[in-house]
């Protein structure tokens, strides 16, 4: 957004030659470039027509953009338009824009004509020449626009640097002769930094500063100095002030330098005032006597005083200020702002828009409902209380004083328990238990705790009397219970036994000794003597055979001997009489009072040889068996069914390089 309100940012205006370059190079890039004379003639014509049209369009577009961007002076606020007029000469401005417009029109014409001619071109050469002519004429037209384009570029640059003056808001306009102190005032009152120099016309254009007063934003416009000559003779710089004066609805601050240091007498200044008086119509005017540190209005001579009076007679207010020592500057500001505010409010009230707002505002005031006076109540003691005075030696002692006495803030800790109200003052500094046995003491504290405890004790006694707490002796078990217990004990024993993988019956379960037999026979009324003799004889024979077999040498697998227990289904080896056809049995080597077999019927099956024809075959069988077991034993397998893999991926087989071997060893 351009600085001045109401002026938008304008795109830079290129010079004529640049303009031409831009458009022509654009044509070259954006249109097809390949053409040959033995293309179809229509194609050739199209090609050249396109170029001409494209160039025309580009010119059109760019010129149109410029024309729309530059503001129409008539569409702007009169202040802006007259300011622009003052600065750039309205006529010249309009002319330049008009020239561009004409140029655009001319280019259009050229293009139209030449396109019509190309339509009937019969050869590539002819078409090309026509295109060249068209573009050439457009170029010439543009070259003639050098001056307007340059001027417009200048204008654009200047416009972008204009100060942002809002013509409608609250403004203070500072005017007067050159060097009276206008810019210094603006510097003092706002944050603007206007050049202040001893030579006249230091300020060559309008400057804006902003100030805040009564929560509102005010513009302060600093103008270049005005000299006293008629309007027609004024130069651009002065005309800017005049424009501002004429079009801005502002409070006018007419600065005067009573000392004459600006180079102009009081008389001259007053004369200037009178000549630009018409511009002050309808505006609150303030006459500021600046440089009051040098000369005050009272110090003036009589004629000057009279002149000053004449100035003030017009309804202007007089303020005395000095920007040098800053006295009266704020006064000026305040007076000016108030005057302008009053003026604006007055104008608004006179207008019709106020009613719309006034209708909507209502101030409510509470109505008294009766005549009773309700005054605030303050007790007498409070009214009569002596106010605490820091310096009074009789003042009451504060905790703070005690603290100071005893060593200060970090050393002494204030005794907060001093003023406790307790039943007995000795209790003030007691340490109170809080937790006991995982319970909070505070939960139990109760003024009636004693009564409740008594009630509880009585209850306890009652319960005790009822036998609630009688210690329970083991109640006599009934028969069923005892059986049940025995049962469970038995079950437990059985379970233990099975856990050890033992048989239900011991080896000696069905065993009977000879003496037992003799007894039972005697009890039956039979004579056991003959049987006893025979049994003794057999026993002796067995013992002798065993000794003999031990000398002969046992079998290879001696362990089988202890393992054999070839008892048959019937009575455990009670055959006394020989039964030759019964198979041989091997009796256990050291079963003492056990099996007695017939000499003849002693069967000793050698399991190692069973099923084999001879020793050779047997030993081969053994060798084969060992062979089959070797691999498993080497791998520490428990048996042929042991397929467990303890380590799925042993590290030594899966890491390292395979240097020269297999993956079962790396």
């Amino acid at each position, binding site marked *: 957004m351009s600085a001045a309100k109401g002026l938008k940012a304008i795109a830079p205006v290129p010079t004529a030659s640049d303009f031409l370059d831009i458009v022509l190079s654009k044509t070259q890039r954006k249109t097809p470039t390949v053409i040959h004379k033995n293309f179809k003639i229509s194609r050739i014509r199209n090609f050249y027509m396109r170029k001409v049209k494209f160039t025309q369009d580009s010119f059109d577009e760019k010129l149109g953009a410029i024309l729309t961007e530059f503001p129409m002076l008539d569409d702007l606020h009169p202040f802006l338009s007259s300011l622009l007029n003052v600065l750039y000469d309205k006529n010249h401005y309009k002319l330049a824009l008009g020239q561009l417009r004409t140029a655009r029109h001319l280019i259009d014409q050229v293009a139209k004509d030449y396109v019509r001619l190309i339509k009937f071109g019969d050869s590539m050469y002819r078409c090309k020449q026509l295109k060249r002519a068209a573009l050439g004429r457009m170029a010439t037209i543009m070259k003639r626009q050098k001056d307007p384009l340059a001027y417009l570029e200048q204008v654009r640059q200047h416009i972008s640097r204009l100060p942002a003056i809002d013509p409608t808001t609250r403004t203070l306009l500072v005017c007067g002769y050159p060097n009276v102190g206008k810019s210094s005032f603006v510097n003092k009152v706002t944050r603007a930094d206007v050049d202040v120099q001893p030579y006249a016309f230091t300020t060559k254009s309008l400057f804006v500063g902003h100030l805040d007063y009564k929560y509102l934003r005010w513009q302060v416009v600093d103008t270049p100095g005005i000299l006293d000559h008629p309007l027609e003779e004024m130069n651009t710089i002065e005309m800017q002030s005049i424009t501002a004066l004429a079009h801005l609805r502002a409070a006018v601050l007419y600065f005067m330098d009573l000392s004459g240091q600006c180079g102009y007498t009081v008389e001259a200044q007053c004369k200037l005032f009178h000549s630009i008086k018409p511009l002050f119509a309808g505006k609150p005017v303030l006459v500021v006597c600046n440089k009051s540190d040098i000369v005050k209005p009272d110090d003036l001579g009589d004629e000057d005083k009279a002149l000053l009076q004449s100035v003030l007679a017009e309804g202007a207010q007089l303020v005395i200020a000095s920007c040098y020592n800053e006295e009266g500057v704020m006064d000026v500001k305040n007076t000016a702002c108030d005057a302008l505010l009053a003026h604006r409010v007055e104008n608004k009230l006179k207008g019709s828009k106020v009613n719309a707002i006034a209708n909507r505002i209502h101030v409510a005031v509470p109505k008294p409902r009766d005549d009773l006076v309700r005054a605030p109540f303050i007790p007498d003691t409070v009214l009569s209380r002596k106010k605490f005075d820091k310096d009074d030696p009789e003042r009451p002692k504060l905790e703070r004083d005690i603290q100071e006495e005893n060593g200060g803030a970090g050393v002494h800790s204030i005794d907060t328990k001093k003023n406790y109200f307790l039943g*007995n003052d000795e209790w003030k500094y007691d340490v109170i238990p809080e937790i006991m046995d995982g319970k909070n003491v505070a*939960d*139990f504290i*109760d003024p009636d705790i004693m009564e409740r405890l008594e009630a509880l004790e009585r209850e306890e006694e009652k319960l005790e009397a009822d036998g609630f707490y009688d210690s329970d002796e083991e109640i006599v078990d009934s028969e069923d219970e005892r059986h049940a217990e025995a049962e469970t004990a038995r079950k437990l024993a059985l379970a233990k036994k099975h856990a050890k993988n033992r048989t239900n019956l011991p080896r000696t379960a069905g065993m009977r000794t000879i003496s037992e037999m003799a007894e039972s026979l005697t009890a039956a009324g039979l004579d056991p003597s003959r049987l006893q003799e025979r049994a003794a004889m057999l026993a002796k024979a067995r013992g002798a055979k065993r000794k003999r077999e031990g000398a002969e040498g046992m079998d290879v697998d001696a362990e089988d001997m202890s393992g054999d227990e070839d008892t048959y289904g019937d009575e455990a080896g009670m055959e006394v009489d020989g039964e030759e056809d019964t198979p041989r049995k091997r009796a256990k080597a050291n079963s003492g009072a056990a099996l007695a077999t017939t000499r003849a019927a002693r069967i000793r099956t050698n399991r190692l040889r069973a099923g084999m024809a001879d020793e050779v075959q047997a030993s081969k069988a053994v060798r084969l068996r060992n062979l089959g077991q070797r691999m498993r034993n080497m791998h520490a397998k428990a048996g042929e069914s042991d397929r467990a893999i303890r380590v799925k991926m042993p590290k030594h087989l899966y890491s390292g390089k395979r240097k020269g071997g297999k993956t079962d060893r790396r």
Partner: protein
Amino acid sequence: MRVEKCYFCSKPCYPGHGIAFVRNDAKMFRFCSSKCHKNFKMKRNPRKVKWTKAFRKAAGKEMNIDATYEFEKRRNVPVRYDRELMQTTVKAMQRVAEIRKRREHAFWKNR
């Protein structure tokens, strides 16, 4: 300083132990240990977790209602300090604890 009860297992949480969790509806939960805290975060119901007092009371394994429980009650009105009262309170606490223990044992025997 107060000894609070653990929300999950109902054990006492001494000051400086455990975690307190405040929910968005301003309900506060105290836990005596990370065990209880983690169980709570797993959304376990203490009434179903066997080792908590809540379960035991709900399942009738421990004495629930008794006169001795009436002594321990959170009081909102502070009582002015009285040394004798404090002494009697401490003694009463011990006696009440004894009685309660006895009753609990009797309950356990008869349950």
